[in-house]
């Protein structure tokens, strides 16, 4: 069948930020959908967001309530959400109570009343809440109409009348098998509410969606005063491939470091600054952002240990004015510390900030703070999530600088406690060393993907003008262990060829 002869399935906006993307563009018009999940996971709110986003006076939404939460209470609570539009009530959004029909006449009565209301109102959307109570009542009372027949007739009726339908039900995953409701449904939305230690994480899965490709897997969502907000696992960036086309280098704001890196950090790279506490990782990150601002490249700082005003105040101590670009919208400081954050939410925040500012540079300060801000259940997937995030952001041309605090050891040089060095294109290691009875700081460029870089180990200082990098430390060996030996001391020993191994 060629493209022209295919039926075009219109997609309706769900009214839930992020959900259209997960669904592959929106909800298929005239589809017959189930929203399932445990009590309190947001099923009714999701349906309300959809109807308030789509219902019109000409093509209203009919919201049938059955034995569950009465519309009176529903209205009491739902009007607290910002999407609730009281002006639509009773014209574009109409509630119909079917409890009596169900009690007195069973499923046949319910179907008859729904038919009557649908034919009279010509709705574009129909919601039955809770559909589960309709079927449960049938099972208890013994019925003259099989559940499957009822569901099929209902689906046929509502599709014939060109209504997009949501049936809401409190189902558990064990009920998925051999359930006629799920068989008939075009779309199956499953909402979860997982408790891990003291945090609660909400997730949704589009288990089925006929007619279009949705993003598979579990997607986190949050319920705020604006209703549900969903965060796609891929945030729509899955199709993008990272290209290494440009040879442009971005200045780190420290000329000597640019030189060590072979001309600066390649645009679109992910750079890791690893070092122990107090080595100046955050300062390098700040200088990197400030250099970008000076070069006309807006930036974003995702910070977890400082508030935005503290962040700019600290920068000013080193002569860096970040307050002006922050005020002018060329810099955004994202401060997130909710302790039940998901990486996807963080990504969404960053992407929104990228859209607002046109940012080219992103600082994540620090990865440890980021991990701490995540809900415990997300921490187990931190590496995988970080990989998705870094890949997605660098694919759209953002250059990322992440800082990572490393425990200082004096026997080895490790690059990452997360084993995430493979996620980064470039690594700079900073550390303390003891030289001549003095605690000094050294820096080295450990890795630059696809490009030559300096192999030098150089001493540096943190000054009021920022990081100042000195010359190569030529007169020591074992610098990377933190306890170097002066070469002169070695020269007093036996000549190398005669040393015993």
């Amino acid at each position: 069948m060629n493209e022209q002869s295919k039926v075009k399935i219109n997609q309706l906006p769900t009214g839930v930020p992020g959900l259209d993307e997960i669904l592959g563009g929106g909800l298929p018009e005239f589809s017959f959908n189930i929203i399932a999940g445990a009590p309190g996971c947001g099923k009714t709110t999701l349906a309300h967001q959809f109807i308030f986003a789509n219902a019109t006076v000409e093509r209203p939404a009919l919201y049938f309530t059955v034995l569950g939460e009465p519309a009176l209470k529903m209205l009491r609570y739902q009007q607290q959400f910002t999407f609730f539009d009281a002006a639509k009530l009773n014209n574009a959004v109409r509630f119909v109570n079917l409890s009596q029909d169900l009690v007195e006449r069973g499923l046949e009565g319910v179907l008859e009343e729904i038919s009557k209301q649908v034919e009279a109102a010509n709705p574009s959307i129909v919601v039955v809440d809770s559909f589960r109570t309709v079927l449960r009542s049938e099972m208890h009372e013994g019925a003259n109409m099989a559940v499957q027949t009822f569901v099929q007739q209902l689906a046929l009726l509502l599709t014939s009348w060109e209504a997009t339908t949501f049936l809401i039900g409190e189902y558990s995953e064990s009920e998925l098998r051999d359930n006629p409701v799920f068989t008939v449904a075009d779309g199956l939305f499953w909402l979860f509410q997982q408790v891990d230690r003291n945090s609660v994480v909400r997730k949704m899965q589009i288990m089925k969606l006929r007619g279009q490709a949705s993003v598979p897997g579990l997607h986190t969502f949050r319920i705020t005063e604006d209703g549900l907000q969903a965060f796609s696992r891929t945030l729509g960036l899955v199709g993008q491939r990272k290209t290494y086309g440009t040879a442009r280098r971005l200045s780190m704001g420290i000329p000597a470091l640019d030189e060590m890196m072979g001309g600066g950090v390649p645009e679109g790279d992910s750079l890791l600054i690893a070092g122990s506490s107090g080595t100046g990782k955050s300062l390098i990150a700040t200088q990197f952002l400030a250099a970008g601002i000076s070069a006309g490249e807006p930036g974003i700082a995702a910070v977890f240990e400082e508030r935005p005003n503290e962040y700019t105040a600290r920068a000013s101590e080193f002569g860096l004015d970040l307050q002006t670009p922050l005020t002018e919208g060329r810099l955004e400081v994202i401060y997130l510390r909710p302790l039940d954050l998901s990486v996807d939410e963080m990504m969404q925040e960053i992407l929104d900030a990228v859209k607002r500012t046109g940012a080219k540079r992103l600082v994540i300060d620090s990865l440890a703070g980021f991990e701490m801000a995540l809900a415990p259940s997300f921490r187990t997937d931190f590496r995988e999530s970080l990989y998705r995030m870094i890949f997605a952001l660098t694919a759209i041309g953002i250059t990322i600088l992440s800082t990572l605090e490393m425990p200082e050891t004096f026997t080895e040089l490790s690059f990452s406690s997360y084993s995430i060095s493979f996620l980064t294109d470039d690594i700079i290691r900073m550390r303390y060393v003891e030289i001549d009875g003095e605690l000094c700081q050294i820096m080295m460029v450990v890795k630059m993907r696809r490009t030559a870089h300096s192999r030098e180990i150089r001493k540096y200082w943190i000054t009021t003008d920022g990081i100042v990098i000195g010359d190569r430390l030529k007169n020591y060996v074992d610098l990377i262990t933190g306890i170097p030996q002066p070469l002169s001391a070695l020269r007093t020993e036996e000549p190398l060829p005669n040393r015993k191994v």
Partner: protein
Amino acid sequence: MTRSADALTTRELAQRLLAFEAVEAGTTNADTHAVGRVCDKLRRPLTTLAGAAGFRSLLARALTLAKQESPVIAAWEVNSDGSLQGLNGEAAQSGAVLIAQLIGLMITFIGESLTLRLLHDVWPDLPSPETNFGRDHSK
């Protein structure tokens, strides 16, 4: 206590509804009929929102509150079908108390804005829902 603070405006609203219906009823017992008609007209939207049993519960609660305010209606009862029984000559005065309590309950549950919208749907001659009644009834 808070409810009595709202009573003035909800009472005025109730009196308006009763006045509308008294004109419509146009019989010798216009006041008595008006109370029944107002309750009956409210039955439809409230049954839609709360079910038949829900409407009956709301009316029964409103009647209980109204009896505290106006003991002369002690004999009034709500039938199982949600209709009123035992209305007598005190209807003109006490009917407004009952209807005000019912409106007060609606405001308590769904807020002033939605309540006025629902009333306006039934009585389009009422001031529009956007009208500021000079007091926020939401609790």
